[in-house]
């Protein structure tokens, strides 16, 4: 189990690296999805709730979602943008911090591609900035592709609420001076 997920991780790193290389070679080509026309999806049409009064249902996802989902070049580009636009400043590398973890299976505002798109574009009330005026449609899709891919790879590990602590190192540390007659408090 452990080695299988390791292999999967290694494989995806290899794919990502290869994609970056291919992408760099193919710079200027017309075929990359990252250069698809910057269609603006209707974020108003993206439901964040699973309740549809009177028996409605979610409208079909924006077709661009499927185009970017799992696309290695979009994922690699999204990873770069995730750092560039300081997404990592709040979400870090999967843990979360100021913002929630993006590695686990909890999605406050939905975890589908178009829901992630809508969250980045619109912002969310509890601190997620509204990026619609700053990022291009393509950039948002790429970040969404990266986030979705990242969660897919990490959700299983993130389900464990406990992680082992890093090892203790105490070499080269100056210990503070303690009074010679210091008692040892009884606890």
């Amino acid at each position, binding site marked *: 189990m452990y080695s299988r997920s390791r292999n999967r991780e290694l494989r995806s790193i290899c794919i990502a690296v290869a994609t970056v290389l291919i992408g760099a070679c193919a710079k200027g080509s017309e075929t990359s999805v990252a250069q698809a026309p910057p269609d603006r999806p209707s974020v108003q049409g993206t439901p964040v709730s699973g309740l549809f009064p009177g028996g409605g249902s979610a409208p079909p996802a924006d077709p661009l979602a499927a185009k970017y989902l799992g696309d290695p070049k979009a994922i690699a580009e999204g990873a770069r943008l995730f*750092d*560039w*636009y*300081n997404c990592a*400043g*709040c979400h*870090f*590398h*999967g*843990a*979360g*911090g*100021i*913002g*929630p*973890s993006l*590695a*686990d299976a*909890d999605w406050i505002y939905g975890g589908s591609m178009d829901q992630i798109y809508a969250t980045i574009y619109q*912002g969310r*009330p*509890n*601190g*997620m*900035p509204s990026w619609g005026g*700053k990022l291009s449609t393509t950039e948002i899709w790429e970040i969404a592709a990266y986030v979705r891919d990242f969660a897919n790879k*990490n959700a299983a*590990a*993130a389900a*464990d*609420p*406990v*992680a*082992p*602590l*890093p*090892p*203790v*190192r*105490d*070499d*080269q*540390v*100056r*210990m*503070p*001076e*303690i*009074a010679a*007659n*210091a*008692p*040892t*408090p*009884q*606890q």
Partner: protein
Amino acid sequence: MKIESIGRLGRAAAGAAFLLLPTLPGFVRAQQSALPVAPASAAPKDDGQWSLAQKNFAATRFSELEEISTKTVKNLQVAFTFSLGIKPHGEEAAPLVVDNTMYVVTAFPNILYALDLTQPGAPMKWAFKPQPPSAAQGVACCDVVTRGSAYWNGKVIINTLDGQTIAVDAKTGKQVWRTPLADINKGESVTMAPLVAKGKVLVGVSGGEFGVRGWVQALDADSGKVVWKAYSTGPDKDVLIGPDFKPFYDSEKGKDLGVSTWPPDAWKIGGGTAWGWFAYDPDLNLVYTGIANPGPWNNEQRPGDNKWTCGIFARDLDSGQARWFYQMNPHDEHDYDGVNEIVLLDLPYKGSMRKVLVHPDRNGYMYMLDRTNGEVLYANTYAPTNSITGVDLKTGRPTINPEKQTKLGQVVRDICPTASGSKDWNPSAYSPRTGLLYVPHENLCMDWESVQANYIAGTPFVGANVVMKPGPGGNRGEFTAWDVSNGKIAWQIKEDLPLWSGALTTAGDVVFYGTMDGWFKAIDAHSGDLLWKFKTASGIIGQPIAYRGPDGHEYVAVLSGVGGWAGAIVPGNLNPHDRTGALGFVGTMGDLKQKTTAGGMLYVFSIPQS
């Protein structure tokens, strides 16, 4: 006998004599001359209330109540509780008690509750809901905390996360005035407890991880009108540096150092916030403000001393004009903010009486400064360190260990202390009966990789990947009793988890603090022996207080509710498997979600009357 050579036993004997003969003036004087005492103007005789988060201007957090003592504390029981009624976040505030009413301010959305202590169970009198914008939560680096409120002249004064200072009528719960001070779209927020002194409300900004240009403002406590604003960076006129500015050390002298010690324009987004503690000396009319780290954390983006960050300003309270500044960490490379508590004491030191301030800095050194001029009298370690090897008392500057300097694109391992310091914001307490400062703190180290930080207003501006780890011995927390006169540790208690709660000490010679897994503990102020403990519902990161209830009996109150930077993993449900999370704190708190759960609650304890 030289004062410095009075040992523990001598002090204990003096304390015992004091207990037996409390009214004999000679003994009182002997006691006072042997042990440091807070200036009476800054720590007046205790009225049994608690009207500032830090208890008094001297920030002693010492209560003169003695009913709950080393003998009786074992009988302590819960008197009443109160649920804070908000989405769980870290509850760092100190409750206040004035006129038989308790005032409790919560983490975001910063609800202020008034509880009637004259009635059984202390029912709510009113709740004031300031309704700060939810978006403010996106610019709070380290959970959406507040560190408390202040009472002044019939008003309770709070700061909201988005940086509004609000005065609320203590009787009715109605707003008296509201002054917006911060702009969340510049990354500004406010989390500190306001200090009210001589009719002025002092407020400092948060946001050192968001490229904020730090400031402190003084507001008229009656009207809320801004009286002065002092930036921490930039030209002297903005920093309120003028002819009265007479720092002790040469490296603080010169024109516009708040500009020239930075690359061009870097000071405009250079941090130097003031989100922690202030103190006030009424005799000198000086307010002392702790100033936080420079930004970004990646130090290679800001060569220079980065004035006036990571230090302490002394300012004239009325004008805000700086009198002196001392920089603990010039060109900080490790996020060692200078915002920790500043405790004002007077003591004989090396043959003469000195007016001092004591400050346990993030960098692991306990500083004792002459508070009239900023001279360092001693700077000794109270925790394991390797990033700084000493402090040169001639220049005031730390000696930096080059092996632990942080670098772009390189992981520097095992830097001690960690970014949150040997001790973070959670304040110490000082007992004039023992001469000991009771310091709740951490024992953590870190790995640090600097990366390029990209400034986008309103988003994090950090530039470092940090992973924290337990320090030497593996105990992540420590509770240290610091012998102020002798500048060394009297005794220490090891704690498994980092200590993120404040300390309280009382004339009953008891010291209270809480742990991040929810234990509220009482220890003997002399020996550190554990006398009593109680398990609260969630981890404790609040500031305990003591007060005299309407029935004449002593009560101790504390907020339970884990969170804050150290505990962010719990209310934020962070993923422990990415150790860089929450600015590196997730790395060393991978077990906390199993040890406690989130939820804010007030606990009040007393000794049941039979």
